[in-house]
């Protein structure tokens, strides 16, 4: 192994940036859909309606017991076929990005639903009684009284889960989709500077995630006081 040579990095920046945009797109969409679907799963799980709570519990346990990379692979295989049959998209169309988004969103929802369920349970039980006693329906009490308090308590955990997801998106390399990690790998391979490129990519991941968790921690302290 020769000397490290960083000179290929500046030229690669536009390509790396495009990869970062893909990474951020997947992360953001998965966080948003994951939180919405996760909230619904959490409510189903606690609804007391047997069918719904079984479904939600089954869903959560299933996704939490399968390696993420396998879920991703399945979706890369299944979603194109599904899209083809539903919308007649040509088989050649590049559905890797949408497959990745769907897979991450559904997978993350399982984790988010557990965080959200704990958050809902952390809101004092009397609050639901008080809201109901005023004549609010269960749905109104949930959306106006319970969930706002639950989410306020949960923000640090939700953000931390988002940071983990940001790193996990690198697993899309199994579909050779050029996210930030994939882009770094490709360009490093092309220029014969794989080691430098992967060290650089690692440093970027570290910087972003570490500063994000510092922000979360500071926010957590502010909320606690």
């Amino acid at each position, binding site marked *: 192994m020769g000397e490290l040579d960083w000179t290929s990095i500046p030229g690669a920046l536009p390509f790396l940036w495009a990869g970062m945009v893909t990474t951020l797109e997947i992360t953001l969409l998965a966080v948003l859909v994951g939180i919405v679907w996760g909230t619904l799963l959490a409510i189903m799980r606690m609804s007391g309606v047997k069918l719904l709570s079984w479904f939600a519990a089954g869903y959560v346990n299933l996704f939490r017991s399968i390696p993420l990379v396998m879920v991703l692979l399945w979706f890369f295989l299944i979603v194109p076929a599904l899209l083809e049959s539903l919308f007649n998209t040509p088989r050649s169309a590049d559905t890797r990005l949408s497959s990745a988004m769907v897979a991450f969103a559904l997978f993350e929802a399982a984790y988010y639903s557990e965080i959200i369920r704990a958050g809902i349970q952390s809101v004092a039980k009397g609050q639901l009684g*008080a809201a109901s006693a*005023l004549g*609010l329906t269960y749905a109104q009490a949930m959306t*106006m009284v319970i969930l706002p*308090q639950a989410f306020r308590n949960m923000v640090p955990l939700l953000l931390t889960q988002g940071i983990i997801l940001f790193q996990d998106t690198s697993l899309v390399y199994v579909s050779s989709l050029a996210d930030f990690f994939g882009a770094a790998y490709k360009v490093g391979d092309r220029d014969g500077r794989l080691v430098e490129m992967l060290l650089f990519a690692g440093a970027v991941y570290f910087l972003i995630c570490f500063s994000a968790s510092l922000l979360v921690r500071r926010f957590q302290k502010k909320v606690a006081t």
Partner: protein
Amino acid sequence: MIAIKNVSKHYGSFQVLSECSTQVAKGEVIVVCGPSGSGKSTLIKCVNGLEPFQSGEIIVNGISVGDPKTNLPKLRAHVGMVFQNFELFPHMSVTDNLALAQVKVLGRSREEAVQRGHQLLERVGLLAQAEKFPGQLSGGQQQRVAIARALSMDPICMLFDEPTSALDPEMVKEVLDVMVGLAQEGMTMMVVTHEMGFARRVAHRVIFMDQGRIVEDAPKEDFFGAPRSERAQLFLSKILQH
């Protein structure tokens, strides 16, 4: 106004309420007392359907609470309830605590709801605190806001579950004063409390509960004169000591 007929409730094999019957006429003030765990909270929460019960019947203003066809939110909108731990919504200002259900349940405009809320805050002496959050208020102030919040729905009757037992002693009076005022205006009230001074001043009847049963249900004069059951005598002598 409220009729409770042979109401029983159990958790598994544990009987929380057995064959409870009583009624509250319009304008009447009923005090419910009894040892901790005797089922007072459970009984009062059955009245607005916050707790389900397995047998018997409760009729509030002509509507059967236990009937599965009854629209409970609609019924509850007109039955005010005040809790031991206040249960104000901590993420909303005092004004919004009072406005929320008026707007969402009664369909009042926001201006109307805020105006009605402020009228009631003035009545409980807390208009100056309208823009604060519950966490910034003392326990006594929070409970007065909670009473104002219940009144903002123009209830036909009010249920209180130990409204002063979570308060520091010096704050009990400010809450009781509001409740006495309500009673004197003719509000129909069912009050779980151990404040016998309050019972003596405004109650029409006193109910004594023990182990899920209504043991005594007597006019105030009779109850304080000479309660019939030994349990009630013992209970009274204990709580009157301090």
